[in-house]
């Protein structure tokens, strides 16, 4: 049954954004504003011997490590990232100093005149090198920012007794956010107080970073979010770094200082999705049931720790997918390399492992001669089962209904059978199952965030929402106002929600992990119900609501035991593709998605999230190629880093399954990341099915598929399949890019 709250209303930020009147940080002029440009390292790893700065004209400044009143470290999990490089640089693009002044032309000229004298140090570029290189590590004594292991059941015993074992290795690559609005901030220093305006997801992260960098009293630092043009995680931790830059410059010059990135600079120096390498070893019994799984995850963190520790944890907690496996061992490492730091990106470590586990399950299904959908369904988690960390699934898990619905919508089974019997060109169909753990890990909300929200009833009967969460285009301003309006029974126009200003709003936590609706929305719902009861008490009222952890949550952060997340959202995707037999380009013919996100706070906005998430996920899986060569990003412009346009994929068919969550506002769980997570494995499975080659890495480019041509032509493949391909007369120019196993397979068949 459809809930009233799900019925769409007008998204409140649309008129000003579509009409062009919205003011982003680059549009805001402050009086006497100066412009800053960053001088960056052009070496992947080097010692800075000296820096030669030309004579500066009057009114121009250099801002560097000596201009930081407090600690030259960006506040993060581990404080290893300097605002400005000290004696060494660790990646191409690492900030060394700012040139600040009134005329951009001159600032630009000065930046190009500065000479930095380096002494190169042997760089570390890959996960393998990072693991091997112990002599001269970038971080600690083993290049490891984080390393964890957890177990469920008795995996050693299971592996010792079972003989049917399947092993696989997968890898995923960088992805760049390409939020429409590049990063930008303005710093102001007035009456002994620093204010930073800018595009961001987490005003209090920025404030806390500034507090540590300045070492000042907290009422001397203020952070204001400006209308933000997309973020996808890219504006979670990164703004703290540049907010520092603008603030130091403002204090030094006494004037407002604008630091806004151009697109190329943004692509080159801001965080990206972690590349990963994931190994599976899985043991089955004689009934083709998985008894044990061993997963080894390595993620490439780049030069600084950033949020890699938590990203890694989410990868690990998602490693065995939606499946109920009694014996599990999961190991994970986040490794340091001399590349731009990796960071938060929609899905936060989960998309990498969902690609891997789904392809691994498909591979096992093939090996045991079952259809992937049946093999997967046979292993799904149900209510009452425990997760990989031993957390009890208390709510109903509607996977059977989800699977049934998507099968009917997409005719998955029928097409799977049809393509198997008779080839229809190089068509294939793929299927994925996935979840997303909602909100912060374990008891993070209780232990780390301690969210606090405020509702203010005004004399004119309007109600203001005071929270530190931001609308970055995802619709938070509409969703949270809707929650308050429906709980209060007041028209939505009476609910006010301005861009947060840390001088006005309490810390309700960061705008990440889909916690904005589930946690903050939940607190606002409670506050609104209280306000409703007390409405007539006084003309002005203030209700404060603090987070209380639901009784049921059990979590041991040391042992990784218990409820890794308070609740889960679930979903399935089907993707149908056709491969061009001449060029190996992938054409997507159909996309289907079925999701349980509890209850939709607004169906239309949720559809927006889903469509965007799927397209972004398909981009990650296919055309978004980013290679780093000698530490330098090769696709460093929007011309070469290609993201999908509306012409690339067909209409998406979506269904929602209601499954209200007791502790979410109106039953809502998480929805932001979920649609991203399942797209890549569904696509890769479809390609694998079409060509009958194992897809072990993404993005699946035509170049990659061509390198598999000999595999596709192998004699055991049907003549029909082989005939679909235009066979080649020229011998390959050089060894195609295939992994060790594939070369072995090649040898086997030749």
């Amino acid at each position, binding site marked *: 049954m459809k809930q009233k709250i799900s019925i769409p209303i007008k998204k409140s930020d649309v008129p000003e954004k579509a009409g062009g009147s919205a003011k982003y940080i680059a549009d805001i002029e402050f009086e006497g504003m100066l412009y800053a440009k960053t001088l960056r390292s052009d070496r992947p790893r080097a010692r800075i011997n000296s820096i030669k700065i030309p004579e500066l004209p009057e009114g121009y400044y250099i801002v560097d490590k000596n201009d930081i009143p407090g600690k030259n470290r960006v506040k993060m999990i581990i404080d290893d990232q300097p605002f400005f490089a000290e004696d060494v640089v660790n990646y191409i693009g690492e900030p060394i100093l700012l040139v600040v002044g009134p005329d*951009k032309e001159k600032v630009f000229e000065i930046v190009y005149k500065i000479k930095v004298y380096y002494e190169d140090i042997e760089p570390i570029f890959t996960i393998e090198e990072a693991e091997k290189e112990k002599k001269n590590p970038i971080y600690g004594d083993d290049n490891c920012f984080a390393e964890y292991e957890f177990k469920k059941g008795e995996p050693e015993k299971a592996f010792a007794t079972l003989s049917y074992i399947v092993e696989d290795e997968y890898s995923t690559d960088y992805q760049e956010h390409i939020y429409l609005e590049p990063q930008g901030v303005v710093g102001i220093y007035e009456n002994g107080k620093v204010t930073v305006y800018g595009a961001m997801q987490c005003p209090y992260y920025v404030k806390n970073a500034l507090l540590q960098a300045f070492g000042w009293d907290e009422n001397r630092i203020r952070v204001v979010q400006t209308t933000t043009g997309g973020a996808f995680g890219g504006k979670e931790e990164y703004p703290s770094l540049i907010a520092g830059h603008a603030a130091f410059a403002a204090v030094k010059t006494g004037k407002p200082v604008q630091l806004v990135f151009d697109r190329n600079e943004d692509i080159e120096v801001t965080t990206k999705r972690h590349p990963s390498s994931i190994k599976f070893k899985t043991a089955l019994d004689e009934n083709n049931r998985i008894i044990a799984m061993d997963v080894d995850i390595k993620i490439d963190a780049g030069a600084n720790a950033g949020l890699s520790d938590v990203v890694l944890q989410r990868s690990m907690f998602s490693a065995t997918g939606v499946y109920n496996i009694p014996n599990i061992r999961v190991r994970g490492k986040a490794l340091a390399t001399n590349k731009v730091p990796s960071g938060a990106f929609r899905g936060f470590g989960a998309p990498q492992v969902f690609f891997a586990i789904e392809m691994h399950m498909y591979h096992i299904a093939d090996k045991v001669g079952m259809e992937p959908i049946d093999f997967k369904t046979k292993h799904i988690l149900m209510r009452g089962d425990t997760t990989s960390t031993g957390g009890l699934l208390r709510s109903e898990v509607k996977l059977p209904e989800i699977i049934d619905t998507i099968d009917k919508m997409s005719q998955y089974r029928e097409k799977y059978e049809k393509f198997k019997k008779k080839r229809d060109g190089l068509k294939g169909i793929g299927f994925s199952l996935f979840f997303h753990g909602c909100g912060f890990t374990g008891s993070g909300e209780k232990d780390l965030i301690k969210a606090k929200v405020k509702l203010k009833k005004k004399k004119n009967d309007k109600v203001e929402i005071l929270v530190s969460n931001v609308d970055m285009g995802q619709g938070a301003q509409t969703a949270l106002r809707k929650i308050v309006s429906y709980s209060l029974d007041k028209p939505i126009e009476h609910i006010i929600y301005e861009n947060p200003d840390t001088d006005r709003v309490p810390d309700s936590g960061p705008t990440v992990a889909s916690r904005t609706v589930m946690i903050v929305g939940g607190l606002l719902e409670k506050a609104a119900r209280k306000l409703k009861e007390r409405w007539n008490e006084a003309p002005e009222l203030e209700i404060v609501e603090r987070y209380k952890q639901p009784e049921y949550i059990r979590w041991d952060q040391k042992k990784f035991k218990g409820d890794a997340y308070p609740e889960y959202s679930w979903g399935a995707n089907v993707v149908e593709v056709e491969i061009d037999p001449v060029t190996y380009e992938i054409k997507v013919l159909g996309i289907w998605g079925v999701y349980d996100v509890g209850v939709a706070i607004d169906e239309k906005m949720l559809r927006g999230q889903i469509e965007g998430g799927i397209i972004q996920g398909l981009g990650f899986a296919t055309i978004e190629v980013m290679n780093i060569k000698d530490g330098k990003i090769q696709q460093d412009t929007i011309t070469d880093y290609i993201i999908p346009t509306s012409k690339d994929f067909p209409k998406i068919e979506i269904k929602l399954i209601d499954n209200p969550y007791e502790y979410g506002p109106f039953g809502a769980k998480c929805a932001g990341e979920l649609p991203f997570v399942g797209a890549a494995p569904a696509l890769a499975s479809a390609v694998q099915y079409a060509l009958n080659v194992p897809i072990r890495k993404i993005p699946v480019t035509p*170049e990659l598929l061509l390198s598999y041509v000999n595999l596709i032509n192998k004699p055991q493949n049907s003549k029909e399949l082989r005939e679909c391909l235009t066979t080649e*007369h*020229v011998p390959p120019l050089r060894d195609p890019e295939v992994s060790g196993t594939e070369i072995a397979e090649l040898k086997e068949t030749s």
Partner: protein
Amino acid sequence: MVSAYRPENLKEALLRRKEFRVIPFAGGTDLMVKGRRWSGLAPHFELPVLFIGHLGELKNVELEQNCLRIGSCCTLSYLLENENMPQAIKIALWMFASPAIRNIGTIGGNICNASPAGDTLPVLYAVNASVVLKNTNGIREVPIEQFIKGVGKTVLQDDELLKEIIIPIKSFDTIYYRKVGTRKANALSKISFLGLAKIKNGLIEDIRISFGAVAPTVVRSMEIEDRLKGKTKKYIKQIIPEICSQYSTLIKPIDDQRSNAYYRKIVSLRLLKHFLTKDIL
């Protein structure tokens, strides 16, 4: 200091061209990207620019008895909508950039930019186009393959402008065009392939084959084409391996941020083979 000229007419433009060293600026869709520095700053040009995109004399399409004359400053959108435009050109333009870029980018700009990935070039080579270059003294006509010398290099002199493009009129039964880019719109070519053919009484009367983005300039071989003319389809089918290996020596692609040499080479030949086996036969 003058950094831009906006002449009233072609004559004035050519005078400026003679007097000063300037950069002709048509739609600017290549120039603005190349000169880009920092948002808020004017792009950087080595020399003053000479705006020509507005000159009416360079914006006409004229159909003559044996040929079509296309003004160099015709925008790609304009050509796409022009009823006299040969189908092969339209097909290439349809895959070019996106509507916004096509509305301002010109055919002359695409030719003079002489990029290996220039999407009008394979078809212009294939239809035996020539370009008319004009200075204050007069004009000269140069076949397109002699005009383009290498990556970004042409025989255009400092005092000349590309006035128009001449295309001999000729119809083909088969047009097989493929632009292989990373996405469907607004992507530069990794490879492009054009095959044109005219078949009469089961024999190949005319055939044109060109490849883009797989060598410093468009790959077309009249020699190989001549050998195919007058032959039966069956015969061609038999000698496909030979044809492929002949083209293989001409196709010299590179590894870059968009693709790799291996893919470019193999897929070019696959497209060729597809054209010869599936499309014309």
